[in-house]
């Protein structure tokens, strides 16, 4: 009864390898069942995201099992074995448990601390539960991994700071405005980064979207995409009076908004706060505008600085998180070792045999005149009693139940045996 992890992630495999191995759509359920049906695998979970594909199993012989899983993967996805062998990592037992904890806590993610992985892991677990492909070991492992992830989230600040430019922009907007849902957002120009940031802001629920572009058709297209209203480029300063958040990313070679123009805008909007993000390079908005009251202007470098300091903060927090993982790993391994009932069953039997032998010897010693025939009958009866007495606890120990760890500990205590003997 050991945990085995076989898989690959963004660190060891490029996206073209990852996508070949991915369990997408109906493949996920089907693959999970096939994986569980391998003779070497007792319990199974499949985690498949865009950054990682991992198979978790409960196995007895990890060498045999990993061979068989690798063959399964290569046959199922139609990938050559040798190319698969190069990118797959295999963890067993202690290292496997640790790996699952680190994945759940987002310590193994591309962006350390990102929250999606925990949800994806929960989904994988839910599917396994509904298909009944897991049992006592993986159930406990996944439950523990989820609780470790939660503990890390509450005890460290690993997930607190935004680590991408568009998240940083949203985070800042939330520290300037109380409520984004009554705010007007304006997108000036276009571009990948600007549109991504715009999507994030709109996703956080701004009230109205205005889109302006030098070519009006482009503005119309983008407005349609963002469910907003196109604005003629000549009118954008006029419309800025209403805009609370502005993202600017035009290809203009000079400033398109001067300080004096912004002053006028601020007067007209009664000095209500405005958050301007200038993503364009070269910059499109006079940096001196930041000196105006209630105007907060960030350019792409400012946002990058925010992100960098957040990444640094996260790395410090990740160290704390690794310590928590190690701590929880020990408690899990302790639980798992108690789960292994075989030594306890052997110890119980040995103890019974020992008592039987001692008592028989005593009896024969005190009554030397017992004949061979009687001796045989007595031995037979004693064996029957012993066997009948230790049968129920042995059967209980062999059963796979959720409270098996408690059972093992209880039996060890009741019979005064030490289960640590291998």
């Amino acid at each position, binding site marked *: 009864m050991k945990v085995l992890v076989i898989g690959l992630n963004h660190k060891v495999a490029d996206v073209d390898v990852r996508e070949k191995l991915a369990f997408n759509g109906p493949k996920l359920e089907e693959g999970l069942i096939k994986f569980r049906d391998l003779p070497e695998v007792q319990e199974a979970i499949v985690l498949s995201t865009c950054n990682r594909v991992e198979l978790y199993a409960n196995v007895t012989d990890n060498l045999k099992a990993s061979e068989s899983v690798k063959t399964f993967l290569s046959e199922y996805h139609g990938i050559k074995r040798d190319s698969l062998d190069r990118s797959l990592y295999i963890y067993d037992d202690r290292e496997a448990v640790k790996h699952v904890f680190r994945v759940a806590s987002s310590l193994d993610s591309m962006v350390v601390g990102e929250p999606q992985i925990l949800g994806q892991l929960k989904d994988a677990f839910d599917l396994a539960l509904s298909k009944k492909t897991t049992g006592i070991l993986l159930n406990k492992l996944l439950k523990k991994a989820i609780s470790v992830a939660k503990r890390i989230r509450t005890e460290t600040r690993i997930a*607190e*700071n935004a680590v991408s430019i568009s998240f940083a922009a949203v985070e*800042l907007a*939330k*520290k*300037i*405005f*109380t409520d984004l849902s009554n705010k007007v957002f304006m997108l000036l120009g276009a571009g990948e980064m600007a549109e991504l940031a715009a999507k994030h802001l709109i996703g956080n629920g701004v009230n109205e979207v205005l889109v302006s572009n030098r070519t009006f058709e482009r503005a119309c297209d983008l407005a349609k995409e963002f469910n907003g209203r196109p604005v003629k480029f000549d009118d954008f300063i006029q419309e800025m009076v209403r805009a609370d958040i502005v993202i600017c990313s035009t290809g203009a070679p000079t400033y398109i908004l001067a300080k004096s123009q912004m002053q006028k805008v*601020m*007067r007209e*909007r*009664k*000095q*209500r*706060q405005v958050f301007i993000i200038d993503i364009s390079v070269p910059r499109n908005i006079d940096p001196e505008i*930041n000196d105006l*009251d*209630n105007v*907060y202007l*960030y350019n792409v470098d*400012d946002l990058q*600085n*925010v992100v960098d*300091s957040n990444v640094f903060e996260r790395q410090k927090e990740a160290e704390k998180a690794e310590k928590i993982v190690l701590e929880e790993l020990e408690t899990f391994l302790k639980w798992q070792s108690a789960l292994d009932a075989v030594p306890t069953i052997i110890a119980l039997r040995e103890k019974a045999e020992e008592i039987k032998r001692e008592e028989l010897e005593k009896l024969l010693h005190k009554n030397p005149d017992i004949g061979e025939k009687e001796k045989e009958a007595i031995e037979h009866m004693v064996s029957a009693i012993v066997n009948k007495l230790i049968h129920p606890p042995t059967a209980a120990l062999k059963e796979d139940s959720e409270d098996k760890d408690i059972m093992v500990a209880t039996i060890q205590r009741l019979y005064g045996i030490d289960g640590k003997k291998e």
Partner: protein
Amino acid sequence: MGIILFELALTFYFAATIVSVTELFKDSRIASKMMLSLAAIGFVIHTTDIIYRYVSAGHIPITNAHEATSFFSWCIVFIFFLLQFRYKITLLASFIMPIVFLLMLSSSMLPREIRPLSPVLQSYWLGIHTVLAFLGNAAFAMAFGIGSMYLVQEHYVKSKHLGGLFERLPSLQTLDQINYRLITFGFPLLTLAIISGALWAQSAWGSYWNWDPRETWSLVTWFIYAIVLHARLVAGWRGRRAAILSIIGFLTILIAFFGIKLLQKGLHVFS
């Protein structure tokens, strides 16, 4: 017993102040819960002390400098808990509790005996006038705390160094709105306090306005907050300017409160 209650309240406020100041440097849920409990216990004891004085004196206990300062602190803590209930900005305590503690400390050093009330003060106006004035001023004290928080947060956002308290401080707009609400709450109270004072003066001394130092300073304060509101509504003076004005306003109140006491004597009994 009154003395013990007051000292106890002072002690709890002191402990709450210490914890609230440490919270500026270290974010801890346990510390903020502890701070709230300490302040709440202090507040309950303080309330008991004021009721006790009310019962033993037979009139509202705001008739000497000790009582006035103590009641002023009580109003500030009262409004703090109202805000805490509504907005849950526990960090505000770090800006407000030190003021409460200093006020209570100065109150503790002033003579406490309950003297017989002079006939002039024996009027129902005493309760109305003083409670209005103190609640109004307490709202301005809170606007001072919120305004200070605004300036700190605005400094982070403007300078683009998002360190320190940035994560824990509320958004600029939230702080600005609370500041505005506090001033719109305090201003009518101050106005009514001045009007009720004038009516009382008319019935006690036969004239509405005597240019006694407290009256003058109240008028100055009234004008400052009138400007805050006017500038906001007409010229859009919000954000940083509103925060600075509310800080200036409260400093004026403090000068009026303690300055007059030290420098001059006027008609106001605890001047």
